[in-house]
Structures are given as structure tokens and as C-alpha cells.
């Protein structure tokens, strides 16, 4: 019998959520003793005017660093850490999506180390080196990152090697402000991909080896909010109630995920985001049904438990009755974009950059992605422990859009 009571739970991040919770920022700055914070702002948030909601004083204009998430590299980190020291800043405020939040977390961590410390020296599994770091306030401007709840940060490498992954308690933010108004500028497609990320985190935390009762409740609550509000938030972006609910779901899934770590879909999506121009959310969108189909095949204990949980917690209208989770997710995600964008790809083959008339991933790259995922720390928490061949099979199925040859008899996803 697997012991039900062997686990660790904890998350020191204070989550402040709800409409207009951003107004608490001045009080938080006082409380955390942040008199001269550095603002790390994503270019898209800055362009969309999201910063106006912060009501920044004019004298802090010089404290802003605006970064495009596509440009973030080890050099960017070095440059910002240097600016942090030179400017004698006493804290960081991150305003943006997952990449900007991860960047801020890494700057926070690195600023506590001697200046000659290299990022690769800090890479590893669950570092336990406690450092006193500067306070960090995280303000997500996209839906679905969940990074505001975790102690993990990723940094893309442009040299073709796998994504740099840091895991350290000091990477936790002090406060995450989840205000639905802050993500209003996110497009419907971005939001839809964010929802795929939330679903991925929630489902994978349920089937990870690190799952426990607390995680299950966070994940189920996240799923429940997503199922209720996803359509509204994608199709009517100004609906703040739904946006608040899905933003909260994102944080819930992030907390669950921070306890358990990822599994196949997360590891493959991270590897794909590092090795190609395919964003994490889109990779998760396409891969999740295939990965779940692999993980839940053959009536595994995870599958039974998942069905038990979903059956007892979600509304009958959620449409989960009588079909497996993977098929349900495929239908759910496809339904989300119906009428929104018929061009939303459902297989990797269709992911295409119209500017350069080129597919973002070629079939010969699948093995590279599979290898990078197989070697990643994220795969350690997968219950099914796939081998290289399994991962390639999943990727091929996701690339061409047919069910993987794992003995299942489902109809094609498309």
C-alpha cells in the first residue's frame, strides 16, 4: 500500500488576488521596506499600457528595465544584476509573463551571490543554500504562467543546449499580485494558450509521483475554475469576473505544481520552447492530450484516481462523463478556440511562421526535443518514466495528429 501521509507541503508566497488588488502595491512596498525597487517590465506589458495601472511615480522612471521576453538570455541576466548592484536597488518588481517573472527570480537569486558567480554553478535539483535575498513582488500580466507560485526558474539558452533550470527556495517571490485587470491586454489566443498551461500543470500535478491530498485539492479547484470560466475569458476578454477566476486558477495550479514538479507534457514543452520558436503554452496545447493518453493508458492507478477526483469534484456539465481525460482535454481545448481562430494549430505540423513561410519544428528535430526532455530534471517526477522511444512516439503523434501507437483505440484527435 502506498502511504497516504508521506509528503511535504508549503508555499511561502503571499498571493494577493482579486480585482484592484494592485492598489495594495504601495502598502506592500512599505511593508517590505522597498523604497528604491527595480521594475522589470515586459515590452508587451509596457506597450499595452499595463504599467499605467501601477500609477508609477514620475521619479521611478529611471528604475525601469523593459525587456522583450524573446531576448532574455544569460547576458540579459548579467546586465540586470549589474544594474541592480550599481543602482543600489532594495527590491524587484516583476511585471510581465512567465519569462519576465523567471528573469526577476533569477536576478533576485544571483544578486545575493558574489559577482563572479556563474548561473550554471547554481543549476541543480533543489538547492538548499539559504541566502538572504532582496524582496520580490510578482505581478503577472498574462494568464497561465503560474511562475508566481513556484521556486523554479527557466532561462532559454541560445546555444542549442537544454533550458537552464534553477530550483532554489530563494526563487520564491515574496508577494504575487494576481489582479485580473493586469492581464487584460493579453490577446484571446495568448489567454487560450495560458489555459492550456493551467490544465497541463493541474493534470500533471495530479499524476506526478509527488502528488498528495493538498495538491489534489489545489489542482481540482484550478480545474473547476477553468472549466467554469475558460470560454468566457477567451471569448469576452473584458469579463473581469472570469478573468479573476482563471487568474486564480493559474496561481492554484502553480502552487500544486510547485509541490509536485512536472511530468512529460511539461518537460517536452520546456524542451520545445528552448529548441524552437514554439511558445510553451502552444506546445502544451498540442502535447497535453497525447502525453495524458500515454500516462493514463491501461487503467493505471493514476487514471483511476484521476477519474475518482474529477467525478466527485466537477460539475456534471463539465462533460467529463464517459470519456477519458485526454480525449476530454483535446475536445475542450479545440472548443475554446472555435470561432476565435480557425487557424489555431492542433498538431505541431501546423505550427508555422507566416513571415518566413516556414514550419517552426521539422520532423528531424523531434529526437532532439525528446532527448532534451529525457535529460531534464522535470522528468524525474514523472510517474511513468518514459524512455526515449516513448517520448519520440508521443512527439510524432503530436506532430502528425494521430493517436500514439500505445495500444489505445481512440479515434484520431482531429
Amino acid at each position, binding site marked *: 500500500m502506498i*502511504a*497516504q*501521509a*508521506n*509528503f*511535504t*507541503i*508549503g*508555499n*511561502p*508566497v*503571499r*498571493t*494577493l*488576488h*482579486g*480585482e*484592484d*488588488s494592485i492598489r*495594495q502595491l504601495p502598502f506592500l512596498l512599505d511593508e517590505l521596506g522597498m523604497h528604491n525597487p527595480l521594475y522589470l517590465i515586459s515590452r508587451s506589458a509596457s506597450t499595452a499600457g499595463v504599467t499605467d495601472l501601477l500609477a508609477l511615480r514620475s521619479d521611478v522612471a529611471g528604475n525601469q528595465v523593459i525587456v522583450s521576453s524573446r531576448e532574455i538570455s544569460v547576458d540579459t541576466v548579467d546586465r540586470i544584476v549589474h544594474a541592480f548592484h550599481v543602482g543600489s536597488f532594495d527590491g524587484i518588481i516583476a511585471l510581465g509573463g512567465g519569462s519576465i517573472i523567471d528573469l526577476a527570480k533569477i536576478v533576485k537569486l544571483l544578486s545575493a551571490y558574489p559577482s563572479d558567480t556563474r548561473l550554471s554553478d547554481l543549476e541543480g535539483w533543489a538547492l*538548499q543554500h*539559504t541566502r538572504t535575498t532582496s524582496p520580490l513582488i510578482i505581478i503577472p500580466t498574462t494568464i497561465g504562467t503560474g511562475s508566481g507560485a513556484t521556486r523554479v526558474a527557466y532561462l532559454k539558452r541560445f546555444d542549442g543546449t537544454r533550458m537552464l533550470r534553477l530550483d532554489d*527556495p530563494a526563487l520564491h517571490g515574496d508577494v504575487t499580485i494576481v489582479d485580473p485587470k493586469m492581464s487584460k491586454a493579453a490577446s484571446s489566443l495568448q489567454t487560450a494558450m495560458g489555459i492550456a498551461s493551467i490544465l497541463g500543470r493541474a493534470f500533471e500535478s495530479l499524476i506526478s509521483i509527488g502528488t498528495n*491530498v*493538498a495538491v*489534489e*485539492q*489545489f489542482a*481540482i*479547484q*484550478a480545474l*473547476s*475554475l477553468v472549466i*467554469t*470560466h475558460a470560454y468566457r475569458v477567451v471569448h469576452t476578454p473584458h469579463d473581469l*469576473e472570469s478573468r*479573476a*477566476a482563471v487568474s*486564480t*486558477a493559474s*496561481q*492554484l495550479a502553480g*502552487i500544486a505544481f510547485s509541490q509536485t514538479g512536472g511530468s512529460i507534457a511539461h518537460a517536452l514543452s520546456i524542451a520545445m520552447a528552448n529548441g524552437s520558436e514554439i511558445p510553451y503554452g502552444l506546445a502544451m496545447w498540442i502535447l497535453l492530450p497525447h502525453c495524458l493518453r500515454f500516462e493514463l493508458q491501461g487503467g493505471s492507478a493514476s487514471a483511476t484516481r484521476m477519474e475518482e477526483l474529477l467525478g*466527485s*469534484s*466537477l*460539475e456534471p456539465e463539465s462533460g467529463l462523463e464517459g470519456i477519458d481525460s485526454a480525449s476530454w482535454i483535446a475536445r475542450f481545448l479545440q472548443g475554446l478556440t472555435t470561432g476565435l481562430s480557425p487557424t489555431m494549430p492542433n498538431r505541431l505540423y501546423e505550427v508555422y511562421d507566416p513571415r518566413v513561410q516556414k514550419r517552426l519544428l521539422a520532423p528531424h528535430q523531434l529526437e532532439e526535443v525528446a532527448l532534451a526532455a529525457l535529460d531534464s530534471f522535470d522528468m524525474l517526477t514523472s510517474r511513468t518514466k518514459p524512455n526515449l522511444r516513448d517520448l519520440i512516439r508521443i512527439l510524432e503523434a503530436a506532430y502528425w495528429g494521430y493517436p500514439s501507437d500505445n495500444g489505445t483505440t481512440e479515434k484520431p484527435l482531429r
Partner: protein
Amino acid sequence: MKPHNTIRSHAEFSIPVRCTIGDDCFDRIHVILASHGVTDPLWMTGAEPKQRKAVRKILAAIRGTHPYTVIEIPSTPLSEEERSKLSSHDSIVACGDSRCIEVAKTLAGSSLPLFIVPFGTLDGLECQGRIRHAASEHTVPKHVIFDGRLSRLTNEVALARTICVVLLEACTTLLANPEPLLLSIAMETFIHTHKALDLFISSGKKGRDWRECTLLAGAAVHAAGVCAYNRGPSTIIAYTEALAIEGFAELHQAAAALLPYLIRLIETQDPAKHDRLQSILSGMDPHEFVKVWTSLAETGETERIIGRLCTETHSLIPSQSRIRELQSLLQLLSEDQGAAP
């Protein structure tokens, strides 16, 4: 079941106490302490010889020949000299029952980080920043560890009494219209106590199931602590605590007396939440569920307690301005008693 899906503005949530639960997780205490930047703790044990022996045995095994300082909880206030010795350590690790942990909370105050290893007779408040009637963020432990070798040393009645207090926290949280993050934790409390009940009933005291049962009770104590921290002050809790006067009733008795009414309130105020509760209790009626725990706790005196609640309402409520928050509960109590509150 319709889930509870409303979002309240300006809600705040965190899990301030990290919790590690496992069969022999105490063996990893030095890794846990190091992760908090602590290297030289003062170890405190309960006064009971059985508790002391159990802790020292494990400590000796994991520390080898390294020096460490263990003291029993002091029965009298510390002298200046003892206090200065205390400040030479960078933290306190309290291993023992609720009294041991309460003393450690007082000693740690705001100056020393506190780590707790609760076992024996617990009052359910261990993971909260409270020392009976006094609440402070400073006394919230940093990390709580429930080790099966120690937690199993409790007895059945003591465990059931702890669960009564834990369920009181969970029910008051559900009644406070929690946002989804907090709702997850409140539901988690019920799941732990439900699984613990299964094992409680099926296990012999010495068996593997009993150890698992006590660990699940520990998980519930932690979840209740998170509920209390995030929910904030509750008039119902204050009302219950006001009844827990020495010589009249213990906290668990007052909790046990009120639990059935709180479940009825949840059912009346939010039937969907009640249904979901029933669903996560694997179909068991929540009313029946709390009744089983209160009977296992052998609390007795329920009628006398409810009688006093009804007749002395005004003197028991800490602030008259909050009486409105209790109106529905008082209504239910008076209906049962046949008298106006």
C-alpha cells in the same frame, strides 16, 4: 456537484508553515533546518519521560557524536542566565505535546525561528500563531514535522479530541465564504480527517494503519493552521474559546458541542458546498461524520455546554458588535434548546 467558484476581491493567501509528514522524516531534520539557514538549534522536549526518551533516542541516532543541547520544557519562568543561554542558539526545535510547543512559542517570541515536532496530546492549535487566546504572527512556526514513530505515541481519545478542534477550524473557514485557494485547504482538512477516520476504525493501536492515521491527523492539524491563518479572526472560534474555561469545558468539548450545528449552518447557507463536502467524504453525511469524531472524543457534557451558550450568550461573545455574525448559529442552538438565546 457545483463547485464553489466565486472570487472575493482583495483576498490574500499563503501557507506560512512548511510541513513535512512521513514515517521517519525526523531523520531529515538537519537538512530541513539547513534549508532555513539554521545550524545551532536548542532542542526542547516535553516533560513526560516517555516523550523525552523517544526524542532523545532518535536524536542520538541522527546526531552521532555531534554535541547538541536538549532541555525539558521549563515549569517556571526562565532566569536571566537561562535566557542568555537561549539566545546563544539560532532557533528552537520543540518536540512534544501541545504544552511543550506552547512554551516554545513563548520562548521563541519574535527573536528565534521555531520548528516543531508535535506528538502526544495535541490541542490542534500547534501550527497556528496562537498561544491560547493570544495570536501573533511571531509565534507561527517555520516548519512542522510529523514523524510516524513519534505521532503514533498518542492515544485514540486524544487524537479524536484534536480532530474536533481541527474540524472546528475547517467548518468556520467554510462558513467564512473562502476564496478558492483557501477553500482547497479547508477541503483538504476534511479529506485528511476522513481518511484518518477509516484507519482509526480499522486499525489496532499498534499497527501500521494506526501510524498512518496519526500522520493524517497531523496533516489535518497543519491544514487547520493554514485555514486559521488565512481566514483571520472568527467570531465563532472566539465564542468557542470563551467557553473553554478551566473547570467548565475544554476547547475540544466546546468544539464538539458546536460542530453538528456548524455543519447544519453550512448546509443551510450553501447547499452546494455541503454537497461537495459529502462528495469528498465519499458519500458520508457530513453531520454523521462529525458525530462519529465527537463520540470517539468522548467529550460528553454537550447539553450543558450548549445550555450555557444559550443562556450566557452576551457574556461569552468577545465583542457585542459581532453578535450579528453569530445570529444564524444562535438561532439553531435556541431551536434545539427551546429557549431564546
